[in-house]
């Protein structure tokens, strides 16, 4: 069953990874991962802490390039193009594949500037008013607008943890990338804010490809169509979310979902 699903998505998958290995110096953090991520859908990565979810996620837009001792092997392609090809401009890649980091990292600038930065460098707004619209709508989508609309000039670093997280989400969606990678985007959010972000993900799904790392099985079940389970650097199982949570192929998945792990 898994294989057929895979075969079905193979041709038109947005992202496809083959035999990906990641090393941090000597540490082998990702081992031989093969995965296909279909377009216009939400894929959730789950797995115990430290299993390599963030690491793999960072491979998908080559953010690992910035870590000094990190080495990636294997083959990852987006829209059929190998993103580790020397010809590929990582900048263009990242404009196409946006990312929300696990630890919120707002720029030490105003809230407005935090969101406007991406659109500005990509030339998405002609006029000041266009930019205002982009910023407002991005903040609205991230569910932060009401809290900050009166203080757009305040520094982004002076927000609460959850607010910063939403600011980073707003910053990422403001440039409307084709693929959005979200590393635990709701970890610091209350249920209502979470719901708002999940709604956003739902909305985005129509046009974008989304990969989300989450620790909440419920969230994975709610938002994703496919789920991938990592363990100790290996991809244990990748499957339709429904199947994964009801009838996983792998015993370890079963155990993890049941909370019998570790």
């Amino acid at each position, binding site marked *: 069953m898994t294989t057929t699903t895979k075969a079905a998505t193979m041709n038109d998958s947005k992202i496809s990874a083959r035999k990906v290995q990641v090393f941090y110096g000597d540490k082998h953090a990702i081992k031989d991962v093969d995965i296909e991520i279909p377009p216009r859908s939400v894929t959730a990565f789950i797995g115990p802490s430290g299993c390599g979810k963030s690491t793999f996620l960072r491979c998908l837009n080559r953010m690992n390039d910035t870590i000094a001792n990190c080495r990636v092997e294997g083959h990852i392609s987006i829209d059929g193009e190998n993103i580790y090809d020397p010809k590929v401009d990582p900048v263009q890649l990242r404009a196409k594949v946006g990312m929300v980091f696990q630890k919120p990292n707002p720029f030490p600038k105003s809230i407005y500037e935090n969101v406007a930065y991406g659109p500005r*460098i*990509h030339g998405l707004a002609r006029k000041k008013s266009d930019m205002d619209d982009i910023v407002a709508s991005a903040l609205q989508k991230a569910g932060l607008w009401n809290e900050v609309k009166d203080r757009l000039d305040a520094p982004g670093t002076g927000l609460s943890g959850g607010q910063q997280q939403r600011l980073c989400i707003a910053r990422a969606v403001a440039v409307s990338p084709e693929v959005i990678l979200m590393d635990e985007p709701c970890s610091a959010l209350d249920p209502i804010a979470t719901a708002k972000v999940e709604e956003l993900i739902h909305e985005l799904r129509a046009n974008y490809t989304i990969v989300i790392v989450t620790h909440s099985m419920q969230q994975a079940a709610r938002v994703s169509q496919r789920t991938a389970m990592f363990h100790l650097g290996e991809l244990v199982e990748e499957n339709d979310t429904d199947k994964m949570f009801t009838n996983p192929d792998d015993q370890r998945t079963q155990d993890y979902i049941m909370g019998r792990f570790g």
Partner: protein
Amino acid sequence: MSPGIVVLVVAAISAVGYVLGRRRAVSLAARERAKLHSLPAYYGQTVALFAAVPALVVLVAWLVVQPLLIETRVSDMIPDSAIPEGGARSLVMADVRRIADGLDAVLARGGISESELSQMQADVTDVRGLLAGIGVALGNDVPPPVFEAAKSYRQISKTGNIVAGALALALSVGFALWAYRRIAVDLRARNISERFVRALLVSASTIAILTTIGIIASLFFETYSFFKIYPARDFFFSTVWNPQFRGGSDLGILPLLWGTFYISLVALVVAVPLGLMIAIYLAEYAGPSVRSLVKPAIEVLAGIPTIVYGLFALVTVGPFLRDWIAQPLGLGNSSSSVLTAGIVMGIMIIPFVSSLSDDIINAVPQSLRDGSYALGATQSETIRQVVFPAALPGIVGAVLLAASRAIGETMIVVLGAGATARLSLNPFEAMTTVTVKIVSQLTGDTEFASPETLVAFALGLTLFVLTLGLNVLALYIVRKYREQYE
């Protein structure tokens, strides 16, 4: 067409290129309803860069080469007979240039016209008087060949300038047009301009290498001649430094190296703790107003001319140390000493440690401090065990910089520690450093080709190699240390 004007015109072309390039990118995008690869400004930048860079490179190259070419051309016009006995062609050429410049000035004044000038003849006109009238003084009267040479010098360089200007402008316009035509929606304009900026960055960092090569080259030959007339063994291993006027000097580097090391060490022992404590106090304890006053004030210490420190050492610190410490303890009665120079130099280099470290410490993220406070650490524990290690790589840089400054200082050592080379452990004795001796041997009254003067180059090169070794070591240690933590 003077080069200055050409540069201005090229700048103007490039500015126009920027505007047009930008506009074209925007309109293309609008027409094709496609998204531009880069921001419109980058398209403008590529056009501007193509308009400016090749033209300017050619212009600069031309300006360097042209005088050489003209020089040889014009120089051929001057018969040997026009060159005074014992003089040199280059000096006559200097006269030619001076006359040519003068003629330009005369023309600019409107005293005569271009055609009058070409009619003018040296044996008829009083060229010297003419030029003296506008403030160009000539050493002697102008022989006709020289005057003719000057006229053609003017002519050729004028033509040359025109050609160069035309070429530069042609290149500028040509490349600008080419770059303009190349603009397309998917042109990677940002990458082009960034590659260019990157090339600039790379070339900036190679300046260090060029400087090093220059230093080695300018020291090497004289050092070589030094070792031809003075045995290298004595230089490196003798413990006596005693240059003599009449030759037969002892020129052992060891006492100088020892003095350098000792005095720098004392200076660092003074400056590093003081500087670090100041940095820590300013970054962690002091309020913003205190900090914004004290930091620039301390930086003034680095700007006070070293002669002031030297006199301070000579007049105040030296006698104080002698009368209150050295003599009572029976450690000597010299008013100049290693300690005097070291302490005073230490004060001078405080800002190197304090200001740089202060910036680095200030840049350590607050969350680290919070993490430590939350464990019940006091502020000083936090600083010493969390903030300081995090800032260490930068602080090491600051300390190295301070040490470098200490090694290179002369005036304070001369006035504070004296000029006597000596190998001794007693910090109350006078000693001196390599740098001091480089300066004094180089600027002394001894003949240049003697070992007494040439030794300065050998000293310079040896010091250079030694500090290079120390720096390699420092880099190695810092690397090793850092690997544990990053």
